[in-house]
């Protein structure tokens, strides 16, 4: 069996947040040797929930766990007297540094891209920030909700009678992590082909904005402003309540509109006033009433199976519990088992996509704080145990 697709790539991950951590995790998932570098107080993400058994212990953050699978971990205080020099020594042998500090912070420590490039010209440095490395907002404070607001998606999410609505969870951070992994892979390809490294500047706001393909081009093609949907008459294509949850249906796929009318057992839907999208919009309130009435006593799983077999575009709203038990995800080997030194045996969502020759492998659990200090500093860098002890005393690690 071949190793991972990125086998041999050495990554230093000094990010403290979700986006940078997830980027480095993806590189590790596909074979890179990733070392998480944390301050001795631990990465910020260790203080973010959910926590194992709701215990806010730094080794029990489930968010830290999933964002840091497939990494080893060391401690290093970049602001300690000897911190920058030690980090430079690590960076000399690295292919990639992933970081998510505010732009220019690392430069003030002498660890900006230009500083690192001068000691390692092949280095790829991937910076993941909310607003990017330049521009008038680059020093602003970012947050998940700001990414959706500035990314414009909020202006069209939710309903027109209420305030704009953000995505659930931390979608924007995962989006930035995935884009950062992709851009890093592009830079690694260039590194392999041409022998040069570069600085990769990823903006979370721009990741969200990149999803606005209809919204952005609507303005540049017509000058029109897109609103949120009206609260009434717009339920087709949105979650619709049924007996035991919610389902979603959209026209298209392998089903005609007449097939859809048959599925709902509502022959009235075959009338002219529902025959195309524009007319369905115009008669939306009547359409909603017909659809919701047709499914109010039906179960979501039966509806999903029957509609999908009719080649309709049909979904149901699954809960985290249903996803945890999903046979489709099981068939894809999505979940993997790990043994965490503190939390014990766990099942984790693991595989983003499947590769035929160099499959995903789960080689490391998320590291405990400083778990691999001896491994990396002594065994790999040749530092003596005495020196390591001195670094501990001086607060370097």
């Amino acid at each position, binding site marked *: 069996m*071949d190793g991972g*697709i990125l086998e041999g790539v050495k990554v230093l991950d000094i990010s403290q947040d979700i986006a940078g951590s997830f980027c480095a995790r993806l590189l590790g998932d596909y074979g890179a040797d990733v070392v998480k570098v944390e301050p001795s107080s631990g990465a910020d993400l260790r203080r973010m929930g959910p926590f194992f*058994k709701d215990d806010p212990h730094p080794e029990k953050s*489930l968010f830290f766990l*999933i964002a840091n699978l497939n990494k080893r971990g060391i401690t290093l205080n970049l602001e300690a007297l000897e911190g920058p020099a030690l980090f430079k020594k690590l960076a000399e042998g690295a292919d990639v540094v992933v970081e998510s500090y505010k732009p220019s912070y690392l430069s003030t420590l002498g660890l*900006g891209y230009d500083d690192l490039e001068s000691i390692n010209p092949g280095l790829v440095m991937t910076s993941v920030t909310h607003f990017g490395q330049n*521009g*008038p907002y680059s020093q602003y*404070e*970012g*947050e998940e*909700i*700001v990414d*959706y*607001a500035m990314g*414009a*998606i909020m*202006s069209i999410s939710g309903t027109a009678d*209420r305030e704009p*609505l953000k995505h*659930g*969870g931390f*979608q924007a951070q995962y989006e930035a992590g995935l884009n950062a992994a992709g851009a890093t*892979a592009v830079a690694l*390809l*260039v590194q392999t*082909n041409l022998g040069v490294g570069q*600085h*990769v500047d990823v903006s979370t706001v*721009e990741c969200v904005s*990149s999803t606005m*393909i*209809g*919204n952005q*081009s*609507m303005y*540049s093609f*017509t*000058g*029109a*402003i*897109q*609103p949120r949907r009206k609260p009434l008459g717009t339920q087709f*294509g949105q979650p619709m309540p049924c007996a035991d949850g919610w389902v*979603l249906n*959209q026209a*298209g796929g392998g089903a005609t509109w007449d097939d859809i009318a048959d599925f709902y057992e509502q022959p009235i839907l075959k009338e002219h006033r529902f025959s195309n*999208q524009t007319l369905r*919009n115009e008669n939306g309130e009547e359409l909603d009433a017909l659809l919701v009435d047709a499914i109010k006593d039906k179960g979501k799983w039966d509806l*999903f199976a029957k509609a999908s077999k009719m080649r309709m*575009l049909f979904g149901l*709203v*699954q*809960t985290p519990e249903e996803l945890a038990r999903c046979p*489709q995800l099981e*068939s*894809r080997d999505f979940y993997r088992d790990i043994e965490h030194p503190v939390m014990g045996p766990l099942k*984790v969502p693991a595989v*983003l996509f*499947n590769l035929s020759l160099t499959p995903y492998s789960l080689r490391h659990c998320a590291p405990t704080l400083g778990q691999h200090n001896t491994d990396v500093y002594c065994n790999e860098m040749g530092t003596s145990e005495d020196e390591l002890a001195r670094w501990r005393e001086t607060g370097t690690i």
Partner: protein
Amino acid sequence: MGSTDKLPTSKPLEGIRVLDSTYVFALPYAGGLLADLGADVIKVEGPGRPDVSRTGGFAGCFPDGEVGADWWNRASTYNLLHRGKRSLTLDLTKPEARQIFQELVAISDVVMENYTPRVMKNWGLDYASLRDIKPDLIMVSNTGYGHGDGPYSEYPAQATTQEGTHGHCWVSGYVGGPPSKVGASYVDFLSTWSAIFAISAALRYRNRTGKGQWVDLAMYQSGAMFISEYIMDYMVNGRLGERIGNRHPQRAPQGCYPAKGQDQWVVLSVGSDQQWEALAKLMGRPDLLADGRFATLSGRQEHHDELDTAIAQWTVGHDRYALMEKLQGVGIAASPVFLNRDTHLDPHFKARGFLETATFPEERDIGTRPFVGRPYRFSRSDVSIQGPAPAFGQDNQDIITQLLGAPSGEYETLVEEGTVASAPTRGEPNVPGTFEEQIAMGRLAGRDEDYKAKLGIP
């Protein structure tokens, strides 16, 4: 960015050919981004199966609402997604078309497709078959639920309905309200970006080892990955996940509040007691600061509704940009809620050059239009939108006679038999009504008739 100079020939995918036999949003967008990176991307469509980004409700808008004679080449979404590609039409239901496809595979590096699993297999165009033609081929398949023997593998899917199945709707929505879907497609883009990651890594691996491989993307799987923390919270703590609207599990107050003007909004997020103090001072509300109920994070979370009312009373009297500046000035994360107009006119977006323009040939009658670029910049590599999206089948003759060197007369026969075409034989333009009608229906919020002047395009 650093002081490094661009290399003379430094498009990362220079010399890479991609056969893009994909539809809708996910991989067509990946193809556009690969073209930005310098690849020669050939979009393959059936004469009777024009991409849905050209037709129907997914097509977006026509320039100034004018449908035009060649409407299939004019839709905004099509033109954004397919920038910088070449266009070949091939009716893959015919053996002679599949023969051409196979000849192209032999001289391509990457093939992308998003048919349901059985289709490519039935055509003899699945990875196992194409690998015989091109042993180091990199092939990307994107499906709703993924290949394999799972119960949903053959189910049709698109992002709208998958947003429910992959769990995002469950965790999205107003506090106390039903599950909600975001205002645009979502999970498509996770496959778009996964494809860029996988293809770049696979090209590097191929350059090092001489080996290609098959990438099997499932939108459902990516979507589930992005709610990992909720799944873990269920598996470990038995928690079912709840909808918290615009709030944050560990920060308060956080929300979206009305600003001065019609449908103008600002978001803000307070992450510490110090920031809370700064906010109360900005609001001119020392009484809130003196109120012990709001002194801690848990107190502010418990009384979040009351804080929302107080914050909204303050924000509604101020301009949304002025609010951002004031709040950011004291270290509080804040932003106006951008409309699509703002994406084009905001000074930060302009300074970053996030939108890039493409200029169309005069006969296309589309002019010059800005499009979403990419969310990353490279300090050395030369990456940008390479040109406009192609007209339907515009490169048929070039590709068949020049690139593949078909004998004279063959191209003409293919045209006669309808195997290739320069106009789709099926599909209808999506004509949503006049701007005035759409505004009256609430489908549009308004329109800037002077938008071209605002954008500085002719």
